[in-house]
């Protein structure tokens, strides 16, 4: 690696103060620190040694935790496509074809998201003279995982640019943002181009082929909502859905495994839990948010069971865990440390309310079959308020101590 180091040292004067490419210093710095941990040493006073962790390491850990979801998403994209066109029946039949279809669809989305967002990051870093934020490593992977595989690439690029600029850079970059960047990207697509990210037609890629007779591309959430409207028990409606593609497409175990139509990375609860295990095991994400998020959804589901005004409300609450993107959203979106509550007590409240709100939106709002996106964004906005009261309690304890 000596020659790389020499190359860097040789180019460095160009970018330093007074050099020809001085304005591009932070672009150079980003590349250099990616290849080599810098040679900075600790100051004269203060801690003389530092923990070996840095933000790059932390962020790459989150990316690693998303890989199960990504791989599963790629395969499931192919699987759903072949299933809908009648070309396959078993989960592992036509393995290669499914993987290739999935890669063809998903990889360009990932590349476009990273390229578009990375460009915005670099431009802002150079103009505003701050280091390039590692946070984008995570955002660039999250955005592809929360859109359907059929999303046009230009929309992916536009949403990414919009989210990085409006949700992050205008606040000053990673660490300063209020909203989760990836969720903002999805919300942008949802409200700007609803035809490509909602309804029954977008979740399964058909290409040039036609779907088999009796095929329905509806997601489990849509089926459940319609069951509520029609007064059919939700579990029966799920079981009877899309029998043309084989029995029990929406069985509980299939929903849990994720062999269902949906956004690329969100379908599999199992893979999201695998990611959760990595995030909690490495201590990168708060287990409190994850646990209380799932608990909130379950409790709200139970509460609705008691009311049970329609069949959707009467649905067994554990179905909320496995339908739609709840698991993915709680594990990867809600735990974003910057936009989440930052106090330990606040994290319990924040997670719980995300779970509760998701279920309320799902069950009661006809316009948005998926609740997690809006629940996370809504609670992002309220996280500082939660923290405000937790911090205030700390101050009050200190004040009371003084008067006693």
């Amino acid at each position: 690696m000596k020659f790389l180091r020499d190359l860097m040292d040789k180019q460095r004067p160009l970018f330093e103060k007074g050099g020809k490419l001085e304005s591009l210093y932070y672009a150079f710095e980003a590349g250099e620190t990616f290849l080599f941990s810098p040679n900075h040493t600790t100051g004269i006073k203060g801690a003389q040694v530092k923990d070996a962790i840095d933000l790059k390491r932390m962020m790459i850990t989150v990316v690693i935790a998303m890989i199960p979801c990504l791989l599963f998403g790629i395969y499931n994209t192919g699987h759903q496509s072949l299933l809908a066109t009648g070309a396959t029946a078993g989960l592992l039949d036509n393995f290669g074809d499914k993987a290739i279809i999935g890669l063809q669809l998903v990889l360009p989305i990932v590349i476009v998201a990273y390229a578009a967002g990375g460009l915005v990051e670099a431009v802002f870093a150079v103009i505003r003279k701050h280091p390039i934020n590692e946070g984008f490593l995570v955002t660039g992977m999250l955005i592809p995982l929360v859109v359907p595989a059929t999303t046009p690439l230009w929309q992916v690029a536009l949403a990414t640019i919009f989210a990085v600029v409006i949700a992050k850079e205008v606040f000053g970059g990673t660490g300063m943002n209020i909203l989760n960047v990836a969720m903002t990207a999805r919300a942008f697509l949802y409200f700007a181009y609803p035809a490509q990210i909602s309804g029954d037609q977008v979740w399964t890629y058909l290409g040039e082929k036609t779907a088999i007779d009796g095929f329905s591309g509806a997601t489990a959430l849509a089926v459940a909502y319609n069951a509520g409207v029609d007064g059919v028990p939700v579990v029966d409606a799920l079981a009877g859905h899309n029998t043309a593609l084989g029995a029990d497409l929406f069985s509980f175990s299939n929903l849990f495994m994720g062999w269902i139509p949906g956004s690329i990375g969100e379908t599999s609860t199992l893979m999201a839990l695998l990611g959760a295990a990595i995030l909690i095991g490495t201590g990168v994400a708060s287990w409190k948010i994850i646990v209380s998020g799932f608990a909130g959804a379950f409790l709200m589901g139970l509460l609705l069971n008691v009311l049970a005004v329609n069949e959707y409300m009467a649905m067994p609450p554990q179905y909320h865990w496995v339908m739609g993107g709840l698991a993915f959203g709680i594990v990867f979106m809600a735990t974003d440390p910057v936009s989440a509550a930052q106090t330990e007590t606040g994290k319990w409240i924040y997670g719980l309310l995300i779970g509760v709100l998701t279920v309320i939106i799902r069950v009661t709002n006809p316009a948005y079959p998926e609740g997690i996106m809006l629940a996370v964004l809504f609670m992002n906005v309220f996280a500082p308020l939660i923290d405000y009261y937790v911090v205030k309690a700390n101050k009050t304890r200190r004040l009371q101590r003084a008067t006693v």
Partner: protein
Amino acid sequence: MSKIVKLNKGFDIRLVGKASKEIANFASAQTFAIKPTDFIGLQRPKVLVNEGDTVKAGTPILVDKALDQVIYASPVSGEIVEIKRGDRRKLLEIKILADKTVIHENFGKIDLSQNRDSLAAKLASTGVWPNIIQRPFGIVANPADTPKAIFISAFDTHPLAPDYGFTLQGEEKYLQAGIDALAKLTPGKVHLNVDGSKPVDAIFSGVKNAQINQFSGPHPAGNVGIQIHHLDPINKGDLVWTVSPAGVVQIGKAVLEGVYDTSKIIAVTGSELTKAAYVKTFVGANVSTFVKGNLNSGHVRVISGNVLTGEKINLEGFLGFYHNQITVIPEGDYYEFLGWAKPTASKLSYHRALGLLSFLTPKKEFVLDSNCRGEERAFVQTGVFESVTPMDILPVYLLKAIMAEDFDEMEELGIYEIVEEDLALCEFVDVSKHPVQELVRKGIELIQYS
């Protein structure tokens, strides 16, 4: 009523190079120095001696014009060889070439039955007073103040810290006399806080005239600031004093012998030393005779104090006034290819994202160098500072209040309860590499001089 407090939050940094429990026969230090920069809050130092003057141990060589009852005395007898100044004539070091045997200024034994104010004034004139630190702010105490209590932490949990049970052996008499003197200075209690994780050292178990409390847990359980928080927290308007055990012994010697005797046993530690052991010397010793010829590598950083709160000095540097330890670690000014990404078991991290399997080897000792391991970023990770700070304090919010210079917020969030060392672990574990201790001092100064 003595208290037993068990703390769970914190982190022990285990390093290679613990001092073996023996007094090494390193050559004695030749020169000694008083560094005005060691005394935080020393505002307008005035030198009372000139180069070439001869002084005894206890001769005043410095006063703070803002607090001129307190004298800063020469730790040894000898000749003033250099008064070193830096930019804008800032006073850096007053160097003394020591005599072979130390001659003390004798100011007579101190009668503890005199009234509080005259006792304080007497102690302030002997050179031992700067050992008494005032909280809030962590500055040298004002003899005219009356603290609500005095706290002594009898153990040090910092990395490679000296064992006071070993360094203070044989000083029981002076320790007791020092505590007796301190008890006269406060209407409240003198708290002596001992390590509750092992049998109490003989030297501390017999102490009278003080409340003995037991603290156990990982670092920073030994920090006096943490202990105060759990015993008798500092609120706005409160004033308490803290003294280190070595300082108490110095006070005791002044009381019983009538001299300013700064001899002490310090730990010479660190991974880069051939022999890590204890050595007997005086306050402000030149460290070169302990370190040179005792190194097993060439490119080192010599630290007066420990790796969390110490100060970088060079091979010819001097031991800080409050330090009982020297640490020598490798200098870390190198690039590392993909250093942030490589899986490794040889780096120490509090975070499991790097030290995933570190729980398998909880006693493993590491060699840490002075590399920053990354660049400064905005706060991102949350909940980590809280997990290494065993106080009911929200460090990140407090630090943000300091950055914003929001005085009310700083007060309400507990700036009075901390000094740099209490949040030193936060600086170590910080993913975003903030200069936490520097920020803490900035906040304290904002409040102190407002």
